């Protein structure tokens, strides 16, 4: 059959065929389409596309990829105008993750990639711009040039000159080698990025370990879930979620602890809200802010900031007292229950009520609801982890799940909601100072030997420094050279003033990014990298789902992919790293990471797979730890925690408690979202949320400008009244450099997870003229 006869045949039967871009649309109102005709259409697909609508093939092509923003990892189809090398629009596609849903960032936030400020040529700092220091007047705090605080290119760029890739890479490698050979490997460090792919993360840590010769490699997971992971490893032997968030629809109770889910994991939140709405799942929300999730909750406990340990200890107290624990599970699957019991003994709801600021009756009710559930799931976020007692907070939640037998079955489990699109993957790939890929300890000689063989070099047996420790090292002069791939610690790390000094103090800094960031102002060499849309790679979401992000656009100008740049630096440091494609890197990584065994780009397909995936013809393992935990004894361990107050409590001079976090429309340091038209239009600048009565007491109107000061710095921004806040509390998002919340935050660390206390420090608020 020729195409013409086929078309005639279809017409005769009233079947309409049209072309939409690269797809064929069929309308068969009369059901006349026989299997034979279908087969013929399939066979003539290309010709039909060429013939139909008389036309040229459209230049709009669709690319099935994933979202570059959060750990939910929504599956997205991008519609790309190839002629203009630009994404026209995006749509959610079918996947177990999001079922076509998206949030505002995924749907509208992709256009940063085509922003004219993209870096396109390697840059080298001019001789005249030494000694190093911040380059923009705003960062120096001299004068506020203009609002809308992205890095001012006009001010910063003149301090750099354009260079060839050869020159820039040579310079980077030579200087790093120089420092390594003079001061030892321990003087070097690298920050990887949870925005980069698994392949890039793997190569990055390989470069730092094998070529730099140190384990000083870390990334922003340190700043988000390090304490959760520490607690999970210690208690149940694995840092991963024990079930996927979509499983909430089979849970009787979902507890949301310290997570502003609708803002930070919006699409995951839709499934939780849906479960609640269906009447199947009861929802308990524990948060110091009356977040939107609280509007959907059966029980909402608005606790005083930093009192989580007390609350959950008192829940456990109630559960034990009222026999709402799973004795069999405790006997068969756990250890250390007696120690826990002894500790929670003294945390009655009445005691807790005084500390948490929640009525004891409500504490009891919520605890009972949780305890009576046949299946309960626990979700948590930064409100649990970002405290100096973050590990303790997580320990309590884990104990709660263990004591009620809520791990290892459908509809039960622990789900620390991961922030970045690839924070799970970057951790899995070993961008962590203590472990190689797949959490294999650098201190274990057998493991080390395995990696020494695989990488062909001797490796440092000493665990490396963490993010904040590396910054401390830079300040003390111990760390002299750094390679920063896509991180912007200037805005993201606590106590920015200290970070500024540390960065200025570095002898040599390579920054690899897609825009000039605040951190790049301190760089000696800036390497222009590709954005998410300009490369392929795999990303692992909060559910442990490994998905392929597919290249949609060509990189601008001379920008190169992160993995290539890393390999080039390795080669120039005398450690050749040669790969033909990200896929090759992936297979090297999966061979060394048992959890990823069996996964290939081919079998990941359009919707990815959950790791571990023992049978790649299936979707992977949804529920972990059905019969044993990956601990030495195979049992889950109760680790009791006593309440300890936050490090810096409010006092006369600094009477308010500052809480920091994100807004729905923005991402971290804003380098992406503030360059997205829609996201910027919806939320153009910073505001501080405060209780109406507090603002009134200060004599500040809605939108009035306030100065917020801590012992470390001060910022000026508008304040708005919000009855979602507790009295005495201030919430400020950390996206906005013109009012950088992290100038205020305290760089005190959790002793185990080494995570900073972003969620609690004392500040003073006053009207600013």
């Amino acid at each position: 059959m020729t195409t013409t006869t086929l078309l005639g045949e279809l017409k005769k039967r009233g079947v309409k065929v049209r072309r939409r871009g690269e797809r064929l649309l069929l309308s068969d109102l009369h059901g006349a389409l026989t299997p034979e005709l279908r087969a013929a259409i399939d066979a003539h697909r290309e010709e039909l596309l060429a013939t139909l609508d008389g036309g040229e093939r459209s230049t709009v092509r669709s690319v099935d990829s994933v979202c570059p923003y959060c750990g939910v990892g929504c599956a997205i189809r991008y519609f790309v105008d190839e002629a203009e090398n630009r994404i026209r629009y995006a749509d959610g596609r079918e996947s177990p993750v999001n079922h076509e849903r998206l949030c505002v960032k995924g749907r509208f936030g992709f256009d940063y990639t085509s922003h004219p400020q993209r870096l396109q040529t390697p840059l080298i700092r001019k001789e005249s711009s030494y000694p190093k220091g911040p380059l923009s007047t705003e960062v120096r705090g001299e004068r506020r040039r203009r609002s809308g605080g992205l890095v001012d290119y006009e001010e910063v760029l003149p301090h750099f000159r354009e260079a060839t890739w050869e020159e820039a890479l040579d310079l980077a490698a030579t200087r790093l080698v120089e420092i390594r050979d003079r001061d030892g490997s321990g003087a070097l460090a690298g920050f990887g990025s949870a925005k980069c792919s698994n392949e890039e993360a793997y190569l990055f840590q390989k470069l730092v370990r094998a070529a730099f010769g140190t384990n000083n490699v870390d990334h922003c997971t340190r700043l988000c879930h390090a304490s959760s992971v520490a607690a999970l490893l210690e208690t149940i032997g694995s840092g991963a979620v024990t079930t996927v968030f979509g499983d909430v629809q089979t849970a009787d109770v979902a507890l949301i602890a310290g997570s502003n889910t609708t803002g930070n994991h919006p699409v995951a939140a839709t499934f939780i809200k849906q479960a609640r709405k269906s009447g199947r799942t009861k929802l308990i929300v524990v948060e110091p802010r009356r977040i939107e999730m609280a509007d959907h909750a059966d029980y909402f406990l608005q606790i005083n900031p930093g009192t989580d340990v007390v609350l959950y200890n008192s829940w456990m107290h109630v559960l034990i007292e009222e026999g709402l624990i799973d004795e069999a599970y405790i006997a068969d699957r756990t250890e250390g229950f007696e120690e826990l019991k002894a500790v929670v003994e003294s945390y009655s709801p009445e005691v807790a009520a005084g500390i948490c600021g929640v009525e004891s009756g409500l504490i009891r009710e919520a605890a009972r609801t949780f305890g009576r559930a046949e299946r309960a799931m626990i979700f948590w976020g930064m409100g649990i982890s970002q405290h100096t007692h973050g590990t303790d907070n997580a320990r309590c939640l884990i104990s709660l799940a263990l004591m009620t037998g809520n791990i290892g079955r459908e509809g039960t489990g622990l789900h620390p909601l991961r922030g970045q699109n690839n924070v799970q993957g970057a951790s899995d790939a070993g961008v962590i100072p203590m472990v190689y890929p797949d959490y294999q300890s650098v201190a274990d000689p057998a493991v080390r030997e395995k990696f020494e063989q695989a990488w062909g070099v001797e490796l440092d047996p000493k665990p490396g420094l963490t993010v904040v420790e590396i910054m401390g090292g830079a300040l003390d002069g111990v760390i002299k050279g750094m390679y920063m791939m896509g991180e912007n610690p200037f805005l993201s790390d606590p106590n920015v003033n200290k970070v500024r000094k540390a960065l200025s103090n570095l002898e040599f800094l390579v920054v690899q990014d897609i825009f000039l960031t605040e951190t790049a102002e301190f760089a000696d060499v800036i390497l222009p990298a590709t954005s998410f849309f300009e490369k392929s790679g795999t990303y692992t979401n909060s559910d442990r789902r490994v998905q392929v992000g597919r290249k949609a656009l060509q990189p601008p100008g001379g920008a190169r992919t992160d993995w290539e740049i890393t390999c080039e630096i390795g080669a120039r440091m005398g450690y050749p790293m040669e790969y033909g494609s990200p896929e090759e890197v992936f297979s090297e990584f999966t061979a060394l990471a048992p959890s990823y065994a069996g996964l290939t780009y081919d079998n990941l397909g359009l919707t990815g797979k959950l790791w571990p995936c023992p049978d790649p013809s299936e979707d992977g393992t949804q529920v972990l730890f059905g019969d044993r935990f990956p601990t030495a004894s195979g049992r889950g361990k109760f680790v009791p925690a006593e309440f300890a107050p936050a490090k810096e409590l409010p006092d006369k001079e600094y009477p308010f408690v500052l809480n920091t976090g994100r807004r729905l429309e923005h991402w971290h340091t804003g380098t992406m979202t503030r360059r997205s038209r829609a996201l910027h239009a919806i939320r153009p600048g910073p505001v501080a949320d405060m209780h109406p009565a507090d603002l009134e007491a200060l004599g500040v109107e809605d939108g009035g400008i306030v100065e917020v000061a801590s012992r470390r710095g001060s910022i000026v921004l508008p304040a708005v009244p919000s009855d979602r806040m507790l009295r005495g509390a201030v919430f400020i998002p950390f996206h906005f450099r013109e009012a950088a919340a992290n100038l205020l935050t305290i760089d005190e660390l959790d002793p185990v997870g080494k995570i900073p206390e972003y969620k609690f420090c004392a500040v003073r608020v006053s009207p600013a003229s």
Partner: protein
Amino acid sequence: MATRRSGEQMISLSIDGRAVQVLPGATIWEAARLLGIGLPVLCHDPRLEPVGVCRLCLVEVGEPKLTAACVRGAEDGMEVRTSSERLEACRRGLVELLLSDYPVDASDRPKTGSDALVELAAELGVDWPARRWSGETGEAPGSRTEPAGGIPAGDGRALDGTSKVIFVDHQACILCDRCIRGCDDLQVNEVMGRTGKGYQTSIAFDLDVPMGESTCVSCGECEKVCPTGALSLVGWEGPPNDAAGSGDVGWEVL
């Protein structure tokens, strides 16, 4: 569609003379889809609970009345016809009515999906712009900004450009409730509902405030599922005219 549980009896029916088996609870529309028969739909989307308000999916099941396939459950022994002169005439009539006050410019707006209503008109051979209702005077339809032909400006219903991402043309809305279900049931943002009575009925945000002032979180679900130009993208070109997005309602995509 309901997943199969062991021991459950399958339902057997025939559609346009072709036999098909489905699980209890499946609708006629779902059964037809199994056979590859794409019935025209406007208010239905497989991701949403069917409500059966647009009646475009009408089929004959041997009863005096026509029935909406998207909500009517498949029954054992049912003999369904998806096309006949009567059905065609009904569908054309429905589309013509829906388009009788549809603003001509609404169909050009950028959308994530497509303007399924206008596509369906082309499909069914309804020459709609020409047959648009022109008021009692017989003059041209009212313009978007000036009253004309006895019809108020904007044809009596408002345009809402307050959202930064989604443009609302209430006049182009056919009240299929897809956006409302998308917002309230899928995303559970619970921003949208209906307001008003009779011809003045419209979709509404919160307690009928402009979209940009509502508690809308700009997730875009409502725009994605809207089958007309009532909800469209602001600031994006959307698909070029010859390339639709994924919302090709009633059309099968290959």
